[in-house]
């Protein structure tokens, strides 16, 4: 066996990747059908999602078994670190695209529409300001204030960053109770955050008239906070897994990359929120 911790662990052939590819194919193809009002669409998407969940259980289960089986040496651990860092970098760039769109609309396209020949010839009377939907949209909306739920959510996420670090210290000191408590609180905060955000969306749609269709403001507001919320969801699920594993007695004081990976991800989500809070809600 290659299990001696001296050599780099090379996994055996695996069918999980192909299962994952089938899942993605079903989800995307079904998604297209769905969006184009073909009845089978939602079912195909659903089948794809089930397949994906099956794949994740299988694949990650294998990884966890290998890890707990002592197959990953220090070098493998370092590979995981590199890869997680690069993955987070790719996520940063994904958000950068949407922050870029926000910047462009606020600083370039909306002022452009409200000035010069463009305004005179095509959108007479359009006054560039922010927040705004756009010169061709008549409905009114109220923008989301920063100092209500968003401010609370900021506090929640910042606190959760602290609790996850607290749990990490506990893990390094081999204090299981504190580790589990710390993670449990973090998960709870994550869920609380998502609940509040869901409430905020309902509020936006029903009381503020703020929808995805509300032009520049609506699109950037919902796409940025929406993708962020999606990442919080993923982060929370990962935290739940880590919590479960901690309860099951996984991880040691010096071998717990999964924990660290999740906490890095959580901090990343946290930082994105801070940017959102400042650039989307506040300014």
């Amino acid at each position, binding site marked *: 066996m290659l299990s001696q911790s001296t050599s780099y662990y090379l996994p055996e052939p695996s069918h999980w990747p192909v299962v994952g590819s089938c899942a993605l194919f079903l989800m995307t193809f079904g998604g297209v059908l769905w969006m184009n009002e073909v009845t089978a669409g939602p079912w195909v998407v659903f089948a794809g999602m089930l397949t994906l969940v099956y794949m994740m259980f299988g694949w990650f289960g294998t990884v966890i078994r290998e890890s707990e089986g002592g197959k990953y040496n220090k070098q493998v651990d370092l590979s995981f670190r590199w890869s997680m860092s690069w993955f987070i970098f790719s996520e940063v760039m994904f958000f950068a695209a949407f922050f870029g769109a926000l910047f462009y609309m606020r600083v370039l396209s909306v002022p*452009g529409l409200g000035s010069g*020949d*463009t305004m005179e*010839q095509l*959108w007479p009377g359009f006054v560039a300001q922010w927040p705004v939907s756009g010169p061709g*949209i008549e409905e009114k909306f109220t923008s989301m204030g920063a100092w209500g739920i968003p401010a609370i959510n900021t506090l929640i996420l910042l606190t959760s960053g602290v609790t996850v670090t607290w749990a990490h210290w506990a893990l390094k000191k081999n204090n299981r109770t504190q580790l589990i408590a710390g993670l449990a609180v973090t998960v709870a905060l994550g869920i609380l955050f998502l609940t509040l955000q869901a409430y905020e969306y309902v509020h936006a749609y029903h009381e503020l008239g703020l929808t995805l269709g509300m032009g520049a403001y609506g699109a950037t507001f919902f796409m940025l906070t929406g993708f962020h919320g999606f990442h919080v969801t993923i982060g929370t699920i990962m935290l739940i897994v880590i919590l479960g594993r901690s309860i099951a007695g996984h991880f040691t004081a010096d071998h717990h990359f999964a924990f660290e990976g999740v906490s890095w991800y959580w901090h990343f989500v946290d930082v994105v929120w801070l940017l959102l809070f400042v650039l989307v809600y506040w300014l």
Partner: protein
Amino acid sequence: MIKTLFQKIGAGALTMLVPGMLWAQDRAKWNFQEPHTSVAREMYDLHTIVLVICVVICVGVFGAMVYSIVYHRKSIGHKAAHFHENTTVEILWTVIPIFILIGMALPATKSVLAMRDTSSPDMTIKVTGYQWKWGYEYLKGEGDLAGIADGVQLFSVLSTPREQIYGNEPKGENYLLEVDTPLVVPVGKKVRVLLTANDVIHAWWVPAFGVKQDAVPGFIRDSWFKVDKPGIYRGQCAELCGKEHGFMPIVVEVVEPAKFAEWAGKHKTAAAPVASTAAVAAAGGGDGKGTYEKVCSVCHASGVAGAPKFGDKVAWKPRIATGADALHNSALKGKNAMPPKGGMADLPDGDVVAAVDYMMKAAK
């Protein structure tokens, strides 16, 4: 071995030489079209300068390459040297290119500034790209052109018959580069064009003027030209805009100012008011909803070919703004991809008008 190689290189060189020889014969095919504005001339000259510099560098680089291919080959017994760096040359071939580039950038900067200077025009024309035709509106003349053509509007559509395109008739002289109503402008006057589009991005390009400018829906962009010689100038849409992108040419007729004034006068009176359809609507009282569901929904339910979607307020708003009459008219007579009466020629006018009203209501 060497010999065959040389033969091959020779053959390669010959394929390059033949074009060179033909060059003299028919220059227009090998280079930019003859420029007819100061901007286009600068573009032409700049291209020539840059091309010459590039060719010179190429000769140097390929010269060195070919030299070592010929003289440093193993088959003639050349032994490999072992050097693999030389700081002096490396610095030289980093620094010298920088200077060459600066040399190119300077004249380029000068012409960019000239090209973008749209100030103090003699007249202003608004150009709108549609799928798939060009709309022109003379906004404003200054100086001796003041008021001459203001308000004249025209559409310019490809006039090459489909029979020529599909090979059922021989192709005419200006195949694909001819329109029913050309844009007419005076010679020697600075014409500023404001560009926009109605649906997707198009680009208004007349090579002889050195003007290529995207027409972006919802925004105004501008450019200018001052043509030095009367004549007919042809260009094409230069941004993929859907299936007929290859079939929306531009023709500009540049004429003496006096002739221009005459032309403008004719067009001002010709701009007949659109027949009012209100009468039809009053008389008709047709079945709006039924007609919509039977005929119009084919396209308008899902937005086929860019049809404004039923109930889509954003899409309808600018159209409604043009007035009910205008919309009745487009539905009856057709508009771009919208066939007259939705393609049902035997539909009573009243039904069509009622359907339009029904659709307008749903989008208010």
